[in-house]
Structures are given as C-alpha cells and as structure tokens.
C-alpha cells in the first residue's frame, strides 16, 4: 500500500542522524528520497547507507529548494503520494500513516502536521512564542487559519504535489507552501503529530531572530515573484 508513497527529506549537514532517520522512515515507506543540500559533513554518504534514493545539490540552495527537488523527483518516479519529513529527527515516522489516511480516503488532498493538535515534547517557551507568532503571521498574510504554520511534516496527493512549485529557496518556503495550498483551492486538513525536541534539533533549528528574516524574505517574495 505504501509502494506509491514517496517521503522526501531535505538534509543539510545532518550526517549525525540522517541514516537513522532514513532507516526509520524506510521501515514505514519503501521510497525514501533524501536530498542532500550541499552538505559538507558527509551527509550524502550517510544517507546512502539507508535511504532509497539520494540526490545531491552541488551547492547549498536552502531547504525549500531541496524539498522542491525531492518533490519533482518523486513525481517523475510516478509517486501517488508525497510526504515531506524533517531530517533532524524531530518528526515521528509513526505519524506518516495518519497523515496519509485522510488523503487516501479522498477527504482531502493535503494534510499538514500540527504539533499543537498533537504533542510537542520539551518545546521551549521561547520557541512556542515564535511558532504562535508564525500562526498569526500566516492568518494575516496567507489568510489561512492553522494551529501550526511551520511544521515540516506534510502529505500531498499527486495532484496536490503537482501544484507545488516552491520558489523560496530557504526557510520562507514554509509560508509559501501554505500560500500554494490556499491558492490551489484543494481541501486540506491539519493532523496531530508528535514533535521531539532534542538538544541536537534545537541547535540545528532557526534562531528567534531568524523568524523575522524569514518573514521579510517571504513578503519580498510575495511582492516580487
């Protein structure tokens, strides 16, 4: 049943955990596509050990660019469903099936993970504040009401994935994807997911000030597509 599901993982300097993340995901879905975004720490070699396919950006272009590369690759391989999944071990592979169920049932074309409907283990208060700010930003500028506007766990039907054309190379892609979801007019739903915060994932994550920069780049991208 999962033969037609492709899980896309964009990775930048994640040699520490990418093999384990890909292995865990591959235990659920056989098609794991890791896109190494110009890493310099051996991420590509680590991913080759356990991922199904590994692609490599010869220079770093950003998570948005890497996800788009993975999505296009999956569609070229006739994926019926495309899931995006983070490389830092924050996501739980057990959440992939619940993300796909509403799409397979035909209820929606897109599901977006929400840690605030699910659980966010060890979420620091500062990060919670920034994420809530992102929810407000999304409501104001995207016109979409979400409980979690910056969650990398998403699932698309093929039809929905074909509508995804991420132009924001870096972190503003998260807001751009929400824009794409809204403009597509396709039904979507938030699904509770579990996010695991570890010292490693927090160190790899965006700083609070980076949130302002991401918002700025998103707005510039909206003004000058």
């Amino acid at each position, binding site marked *: 049943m999962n033969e037609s599901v492709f899980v896309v993982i964009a990775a930048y300097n994640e040699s520490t955990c990418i093999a384990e993340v890909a292995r865990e995901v591959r235990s659920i879905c056989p098609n794991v596509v890791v896109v190494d975004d110009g890493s310099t720490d051996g991420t590509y070699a680590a991913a*080759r050990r356990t991922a*199904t396919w590994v692609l490599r950006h*010869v220079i770093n*272009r*950003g998570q948005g660019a890497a996800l788009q590369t993975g999505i296009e690759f999956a569609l070229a391989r006739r994926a019926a469903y495309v899931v995006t999944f983070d490389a830092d071990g924050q996501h739980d592979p057990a959440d992939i099936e619940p993300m796909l169920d509403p799409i397979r049932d035909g209820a929606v074309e897109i599901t977006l993970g929400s840690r605030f409907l699910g659980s966010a283990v060890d979420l620091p208060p500062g990060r919670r504040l920034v994420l809530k700010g992102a929810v407000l930003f999304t409501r104001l500028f995207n016109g979409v009401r979400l409980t979690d506007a910056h969650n990398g766990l998403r699932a698309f039907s093929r039809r929905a994935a074909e509508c995804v054309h991420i*132009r924001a190379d870096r972190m503003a892609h998260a807001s751009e994807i929400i824009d794409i979801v809204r403009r597509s007019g396709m039904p979507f739903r938030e699904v509770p997911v579990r996010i695991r915060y570890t010292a490693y994932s927090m160190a790899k994550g965006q700083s609070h000030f980076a949130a302002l920069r991401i918002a700025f780049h998103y707005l510039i991208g909206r003004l*000058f597509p």
Partner: protein
Amino acid sequence: MNGFQLVILAVLAGLSVATVVSLLRRWLSLGLAVGLFILWIGGAVLAIRPATATDIARLLGIGRGADLVLYCSVLLMLVGFFMVYIRIRRLRAHLTQLVREIAIMRAEGPDDGD
C-alpha cells in the same frame, strides 16, 4: 567652460558611446538605454549650465540646485540598488534550477552500486 566641466562632458560622452554599443549588442533593453540617455543628456546640460539646476530646484520648491542634484542622485541610487537586487533574485532562481537538474540527473538509487 572650465576644465572640470570638460572632464564631465568627456565622461558623459564616453558613457553615451558605451550605451549605444550595449544597446547594439543587446546587453541593454531599449527602454533602459533611453532612460540612460536622458540621464547623460541631463548631466551634460547641468555641466554646461550649472544654473539650470537652481532654476529647476526653485520651480520644485527646493532651495538649491545642489540639493536637487543630491536628492535625485540618492533616488537614482536607490532605484539602481533595487534593480540589482531583483536581478540577483532572478539569478539565484536560475541557479537553483540548474542545481536541481544536476541533482535529479545524478540521483543514486537502489540499483546503483556503491
């Protein structure tokens, strides 16, 4: 006409020639070339008769011709920076497309040996 004015006129003449060459080689669009010519001609007029700036400034309610030139220079600089920024954004997008094509072409899968 003093030496400084002659130098300015010589520079503007050179820029005009460069603009024509760039237009003929299609490095510049016609619109941009026309805009640049207007700029070079305006600069030449001010170089030949500096009092023109003062006359225009007074018409616009600005005190001095030098202030008008300063304001216009700052405005043009901002426009220039903005155009360069937009051009860089487009180049980045093209670069990403190129990197993507290479990544997909070289993808390694389960059938590829180590």
